[in-house]
């Protein structure tokens, strides 16, 4: 851990900085006063430096007739952000943000800081939400710059209620972290909780906003994501409008939003772009897919190992025929195939896109078929595992998708030990765990537990806009009504009714 030295001498700061090869110092003489211009060359905008700042200094050098006045010098610099300070800490901070430091030998105690930084350097300009893709709706995502992200947010929500608060975190990274909320709508308790949690952080580098998630979460021993982490602008706007608090951090293309509930992770922004019947249908399909994905392979193990009596009579033939040549117990068979799928997935994620596609074909078709031919697995299981892998991809958020990938394995092991009872036992444990979870001190399983009848309108199904005009109860928003549900033009005027 790095201890911040107190009451540093500005000279020492320059001395320390000089150790770096990209720190440069230029000596100049203005009006008979020796000045030192120093900066990190890697951080500054060379165009501004060479075309604006240095020519100005050179001009000053020529004017030898006037007596040197620091204030006049400061005010005539043709750049926006110029300041004088004596605070060593501030000097150090600003130097690392791309400011130019000007010191005056023997003339003034004040140090002059000029902003010639280049913020957009090294940052990509667009993000097409590749990881949370949607067919309809805006495809605008966040990038690695905090200012751009806030700009994107403000350009979508032009309301004056959008409030940002900034703080710096990380002893090494000094990352700017912004808390965004709607003033007068978001409950202060949530804002207070977020601030308190962030203030307590003692961490070296804030890698990503998602990493922040783990540091500030209520219960760190859980596989479930407690805050919605997304790179989609529309998602963040939606959660903000409900009264959640959003955290951005500089250098991360994702934002986290909380307090979240379990069902939030199965909601896709697309649900709101389609009409409510279609949207609800897709949402139900997604929830079914998640249940299927978690339980299908463990159910296969349970049925084939213990509960042969529940197999429909007509399915017995194909099932036994395909199992007959497999030398392993069902659980080994399932684990083998699940591992294959996980390997494919992990390899696909690490490989370049084009190679990844080839790998998908090789893995999916060739390995699967060969495994059946080699009697390592039965072909019914191949279908079950492939379908459950496919189903797990329907989760709209990456973090929940990973959790579901993980959850399958304990269930498979439990079912191989105790059959259906094992699955029930595992499910009971997970359910107890879920009921205990909290996200920013708000229950995670709302509206199931605590039961909130009204909040079911936008949970498993997406009700029409006129019905879901209120903010969910669990967020305790200060203004509960989002918009009035009454249609403005109740009289329907048909163009043909004349």
């Amino acid at each position: 851990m790095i201890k911040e030295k107190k009451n540093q001498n500005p000279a020492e700061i320059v001395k320390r900085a000089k150790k770096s090869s990209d720190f440069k110092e230029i000596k100049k003489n203005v009006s008979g006063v020796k000045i030192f211009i120093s900066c990190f060359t890697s951080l500054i905008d060379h165009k501004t430096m060479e075309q604006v700042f240095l020519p100005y200094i050179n001009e000053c050098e020529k004017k030898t007739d006037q007596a040197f006045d620091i204030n006049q010098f400061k005010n005539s610099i043709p750049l926006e952000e110029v300041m004088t300070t004596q605070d060593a800490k501030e000097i150090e901070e600003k130097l690392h943000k791309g400011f130019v430091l000007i010191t005056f030998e023997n003339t003034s105690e004040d140090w002059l800081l000029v902003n010639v930084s280049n913020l957009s350097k090294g940052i990509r300009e667009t993000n097409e939400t590749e990881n949370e893709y949607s067919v309809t709706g805006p495809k605008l995502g966040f990038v690695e710059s905090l200012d751009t992200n806030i700009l994107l947010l403000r350009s979508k929500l032009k309301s004056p209620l959008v409030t940002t608060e900034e703080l710096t975190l990380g002893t090494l990274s000094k990352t700017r972290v912004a808390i965004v909320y709607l003033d007068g709508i978001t409950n202060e308790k949530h804002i207070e909780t977020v601030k308190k949690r962030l203030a307590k952080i003692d961490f070296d580098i804030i890698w990503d906003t998602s990493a922040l998630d783990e540091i500030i979460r209520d219960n760190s021993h859980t596989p479930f994501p407690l805050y919605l982490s997304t790179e989609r602008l529309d998602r963040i706007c939606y959660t903000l409008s409900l009264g959640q608090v959003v955290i951005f951090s500089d250098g991360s293309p994702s934002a986290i939003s909380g307090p979240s509930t379990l069902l939030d992770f199965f909601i896709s922004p697309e649900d709101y772009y389609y009409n409510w019947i279609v949207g609800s249908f897709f949402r139900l399909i997604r929830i079914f897919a998640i249940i299927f994905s978690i339980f299908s392979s463990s159910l296969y193990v349970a049925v084939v190992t213990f509960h042969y009596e529940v197999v429909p009579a007509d399915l017995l033939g194909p099932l036994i025929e395909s199992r007959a040549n497999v030398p392993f117990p069902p659980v080994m068979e399932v684990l083998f195939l699940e591992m294959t799928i996980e390997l494919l997935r992990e390899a696909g994620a690490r490989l370049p896109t084009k190679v990844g596609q080839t790998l998908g074909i090789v893995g999916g078709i060739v390995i699967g078929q060969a495994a059946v031919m080699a009697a390592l697995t039965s072909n019914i299981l191949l279908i079950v595992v492939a379908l459950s892998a496919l189903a797990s991809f329907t989760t709209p958020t990456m973090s929940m998708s990973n959790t579901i990938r993980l959850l399958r394995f304990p269930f498979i092991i439990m079912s191989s030990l105790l059959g259906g009872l094992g699955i029930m036992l595992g499910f009971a444990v997970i359910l107890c765990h879920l009921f205990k979870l909290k996200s920013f001190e708000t229950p995670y399983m709302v509206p199931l537990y605590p039961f909130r009848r009204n909040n079911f309108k936008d949970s498993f199904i997406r009700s029409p806009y006129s019905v879901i005009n209120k903010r969910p109860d669990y967020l305790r928003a200060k203004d509960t009504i989002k918009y009035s549900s009454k249609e403005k033009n109740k009289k329907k005027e048909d163009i043909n009714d004349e």
Partner: protein
Amino acid sequence: MMNNTFVKMGCVILSLILAGCVPHNTIDEVSLMHNIGFDKEEEMLKASVVYPNYAESDNPALITAAAENPSSLQEELSHKSQFPFEIGQVRLLIFGDKLSREGLAPILDTICKDPKIGIIRIVITDGSPDLLLRKTLKESPLFLMNLIEKSIENEGIPETDLHLMYDQFFGSGIDMSFPNLTVDSKENVKVDGMGIFKDDKLALRISEKETFLLKLMTDANKRGVYSFNLNMNGNKANIGVRIISGKHKVKFIKDNLKEKVKVSLNLNVELDALPEWINLEKEKDLKLLKNALQKSISTEAEILLKKFQANGVDPIGIGRRYKANHENYSELSFYDRIYPGMTYDADTKITIRQTGVGK
């Protein structure tokens, strides 16, 4: 707190595993029985089992074993097979004639204690189940189950399965009845009438027609064909009508100190083949046909009820209905005193729903 829960859960799981209370039955490492026939042979209990060989061939195999009690039967069977026999996939139980007459109680008691047995059909045969099963060996192992299922669905056989059997066997005020399978003169297996039990012993066999009447008075599903002799306008013919749906009601009427059972049937029928001399467009013909049909069903139902009464069996559950209406009901006294003295009155109401496309 978190750790504590995990420790507790761990203890529960570990104890369950260590107790080893879940035996493995990997699906391809057991011999699944599909049909079991039970019979008595020289004081020994004999079981014939049809089991499929899904892994090797398509045809099922038959294996028989004899033992003195039902519990050792399964072991006797397993002595003759590669894998242990498992009862969980049984679809059909067949009881032989001899065993049915001696009593099914020992077998039924064993079966009802096994939670692995699901919904299975129970039938009896008038010959030996061994012979019956041998006749169907060339078919799929599920042939007999499908045969019974289809007959119950469409062809006038009353619903019969394990759960109904529990209700009829252990419940009061009703007697068991199972469909009867037989091998006909052309060596085909067919469903033929029913056997009515008193307690656990076969007491009475009824014909196919009586079986359908019994279904009309007990089941919610009343599909089947009823044939009757029509004598109208000097012409005679035997006509079959298909009954589509309907309702039955059993009521008690006090009649001169005697209990009178009033069975009302409300049936919807479909007429498809009619002789030429009936013209349904004529109001009179239609009325005559309806009346003849109603009368035929009513009289035959009354005769059947009296037959049950004479044999002391009650497959309709009159005792159960009586119990619902009378406070001080006791099964023993009902069947000793009240049941033999009951009179019957069947009342049928026919609605003709479909007649097919006209000429």
